């Protein structure tokens, strides 16, 4: 088996600050980033903290940055070749410890407690339901250059959710959703970098939804608020 060096971000609330620890990890063709972290925890350092739950890109808990790129650790192969790979926590959310970020800051940005279940697009024969695609993983927020420069910006996940509520209201008051989105720190803050769509593991395409949301706001014609020039 081949070996890869991992540089892993470490932070404990012990007053010693942030640092990187290096580990040499055995890798095969299918070894994922999460496999490597689990190997380190089992064989090298039990104190390493990271999040994971479903192991199949459904729960969205295991987001990290691999060499500066947002990925779900559970479905991202580490690769057998290359130099040291750097693993860091997601950006734009507070780090609780090591690779663990505080998800509370992600949910605090949403318009509302999000409705998990919606109508299935396949449900012609029956009133079938399905879960929303958004995994609530925070990868889009981490990748967004605007969220990196403005804490007040609600970010791509929350805006994409607002647009979903316009597409399929499920009890949400459409005008209120539009009012919520029609603010300088909401729909108008996005600079269309499309980083969110590139990293989204659920196929939500947040950037396109933000653009659709802006279209809806323009059609409404109030335009109460605009981003500063």
């Amino acid at each position: 088996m081949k070996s890869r060096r991992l540089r892993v971000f470490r932070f404990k609330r012990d007053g010693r600050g942030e640092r990187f620890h290096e580990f040499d990890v055995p890798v095969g063709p299918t070894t994922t980033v999460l496999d490597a972290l689990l190997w380190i925890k089992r064989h090298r350092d039990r104190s390493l903290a990271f999040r994971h739950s479903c192991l199949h890109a459904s729960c969205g808990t295991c987001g990290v940055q691999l060499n500066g790129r947002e990925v779900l650790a559970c479905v991202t192969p580490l690769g057998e070749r290359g130099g040291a790979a750097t693993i860091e926590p997601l950006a734009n959310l507070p780090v609780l410890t090591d690779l663990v970020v505080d998800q509370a800051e992600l949910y605090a940005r949403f318009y509302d407690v999000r409705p998990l279940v919606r109508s299935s697009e396949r449900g012609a024969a029956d009133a079938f339901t399905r879960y929303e695609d958004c995994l609530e993983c925070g990868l889009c927020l981490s990748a967004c250059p605007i969220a990196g420069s403005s804490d007040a910006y609600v970010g791509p996940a929350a805006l994409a959710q607002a647009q979903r509520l316009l597409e399929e209201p499920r009890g949400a008051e459409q005008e209120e959703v539009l009012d919520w989105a029609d603010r300088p720190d909401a729909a108008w803050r996005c600079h269309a970098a499309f980083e969110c769509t590139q990293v989204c593991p659920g196929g939500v395409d947040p950037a396109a939804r933000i653009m659709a949301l802006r279209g809806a706001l323009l059609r409404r014609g109030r335009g109460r608020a605009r981003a500063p020039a």
Partner: protein
Amino acid sequence: MTTIRPQSDDGWGAARPRHDAHVLVIGGGGTGGALAHDLALRGLRVTLVERGELTSGTTGRHHGLLHSGARYAVNDRESAVECIEENAVLRRICPGSFEENDGLFVAVTEQDLEYLEPLLEGCAACGIPTQVLAPAEALALEPNLNPGLKVAVRVPDATVDAMRMPLRFFATACRNGARVYPFVEVTGLLVHDGAVGGAQVHDLVTGAEGGVGADVVVNAAGPWSGRIASMADIEVPIRPSPGVLLALRGRLCDMVVNRLHRSGDGDIVLPTRGLSVVGTSSWVVDDPDDLDVPEEHVRRMLEEGRKLIPAVEQAEPRAAWSAARPLIGSRTADTGRELSRTFKTFDHAEEDGVEGFVTITGGKGTTLRAMAELCADVVCRKLGLDEPCRTRDTVLLPHTAYYAA
């Protein structure tokens, strides 16, 4: 009392417990979460520790099936009855957490048809409603089914977000004063004079080590409960029994699609978000941290899964993983299939002469609330508290409330 980090108010939250008794729950899976919620509703002080993220052991990895019980109706009726009862309770207390699309048991061979009558009889005996569908009726509901299917039986299966539904128990427990600490690992039990009085813990967030005192310690560590019990020199008959699951890109069905035959490898295909999950295999291990994903199991998932839904074969794989079931059984079990899916509470005072220590294990995601009720009854009896269970009718907070706690 404890060195583990304080939560928001360094206390017991807005809901001050009515009783002084303090229960430490080890394990932040569905069982531990449901137990913390049950005990908090009964007015006890509850602290829960989990070595990783909540639901990171077995709970979050499960295929997301809310069982109707039909899978067990032929050979394991105790489990089947537990499932259909809890299926109804969970839909009531977790509104919005399920894709309520029902399930099908699909016969694809002549041999499968031999299982039809036993399945219908078993379901009837267990109170599980069934509807027999002709092939054309089943295909109208699920066009991707094997067009050669012989018959299908509709049952009230559903699918569930394996992490977010359990998180609702944690969210509600915290609102009612329970203290929940992920990333706190138990490194030992505090045992004096034949009684467990707490646990030694390592807080991965602060790096601190210390003790947590408790009147009763509950071992809800699932397949790891053998390891926790061994810290008090107690053996519990747990067989960690892993299974392989496979996630494919694309939503091949809306309903839960089961094979109409005895429980076997690759006998279920079900949707979750934009993925389809095929499960599962079964074997037994000694160490639940030592889970590989055998390639031949993945191949078998594809081979068997495509008999139910042929499009399984062309779908792009998204992930393959293993999860360890915490089955109750003897060391002679060799595949885990022969072991019951029911659950059991061990009061180690009765079983092993060790006071203050209870293990709850076995069971499955669908029965998490019932497991907690049984265990909380035992805990309250040990503490001399006459507090009824209130979880059957308490609607749970949304999963997002856990993070807002």
